[in-house]
């Protein structure tokens, strides 16, 4: 799977199509990360964690939820 920020969502979709993998699971998180304080990054990571696990364990079921 791939984790990206929403600013790169269109690029990720383009890559999935280019490589013939439209169902490749992608978790989209809030942008930006690079200039955000560490405690805020940790909060976002905690918030995304359950979804990330779901995608890893049940990618087919999670696909609809993420898309």
């Amino acid at each position, binding site marked *: 799977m791939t984790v990206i920020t929403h*600013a790169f969502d269109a*690029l990720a979709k383009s*890559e999935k199509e*280019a490589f013939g993998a439209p169902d490749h699971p992608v978790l989209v998180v809030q942008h930006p990360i690079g200039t955000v304080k560490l405690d805020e990054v940790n909060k976002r990571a905690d918030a995304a964690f359950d979804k990330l696990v779901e995608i890893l364990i049940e990618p087919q079921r999670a696909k609809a939820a993420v898309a």
Partner: protein
Amino acid sequence: MDTSTLQAERLEVEDDIWAAQAFFEEKGWSDGLPIIPPTEDRVAQMLAAVKRAPQDVIGAVPPRWAPATVEKIAINAVMAGCKPEYMSTLIACVEAITDTKLNLYALQATTGGPAVMIIINGPIRQELNVNGGANVLGEGWRANATIGRFVRLIQRNVGGSYPGTTCKATLGWPGKYSICIGENEEASPWEPLHVERGFKADQSTVTAISADASIRASDLDSTKAVGILTNFAQRMEGPSGPEAIMVICPEHAKIIAGDGFSKTDVKKFVWERAAYRMKDLPDETFHQRVKRRSDLKLTRDSVIPVTDKPEDILVVVAGGDGSQSQYIHVWGQSTPEGGSTRSVTKVIRN
């Protein structure tokens, strides 16, 4: 030539230059500047200039990873305003930009927004009238302007690199429209770039390299190499890159070489001085840098040189009269593996 074998879709557009521009703009097939409509006749003239089959694939262009065939190259060459005699150079450009070492995907996906700079060496410069002299990084020469533009159109029209979505440049810079120079080999006291890289002097090459906006390294005061190079090194200070480009003007090059400096000496001299000093950084930035380059085991006493090794600096002599050189930072990360992008040189075959 027989155009019936060409695979591109034929599109009917009103026979009016304004209508054609509007059509291409609406389709997103332009860099914003007007294009030359790629009619069958014009594309055929491009293809007739090379002994390559139209469907030969030269490389895959990211982010769409679409095949850049000779036909697609010819179409974009027409659109960019190239002449048919540029075709073999354009094919070499596509070979260079699709070489995995350049990592074109990253150059386009990054928010950093570098251009893909083309440096041309060898006799082809005279044949195509490629400028390596006055105003070399500016306007005025069709070959420089349109070969550089062609590279951008290939990224966009074949690769699918569109600003804001698949090209993530925060700002970009005007070099993204076109940046193509010839080395002024005749005014250089040193071996040209392509000879340094193992090609013969009578061969012609293109070099593709990641390029950020340049910084002028003006020096009208120094009459000795150490002065010019110390001044140049000061312009190069800051976060490092996998490579760096010194565009040295002929007047500076003459003085530097006259003081006995070889190209290797030039690189070593600036590399030892162009440093990013850890002691100057705020704590937060310092700690992030330490994590980013854990292989270097950075401390507050550390300095990061402009590149990991002196030989990663490219020295190119170009420009006309005057004591004005320029430094071009190379976007990308220095990494223990050799960097996230590396310049690529390809020979031009007729």
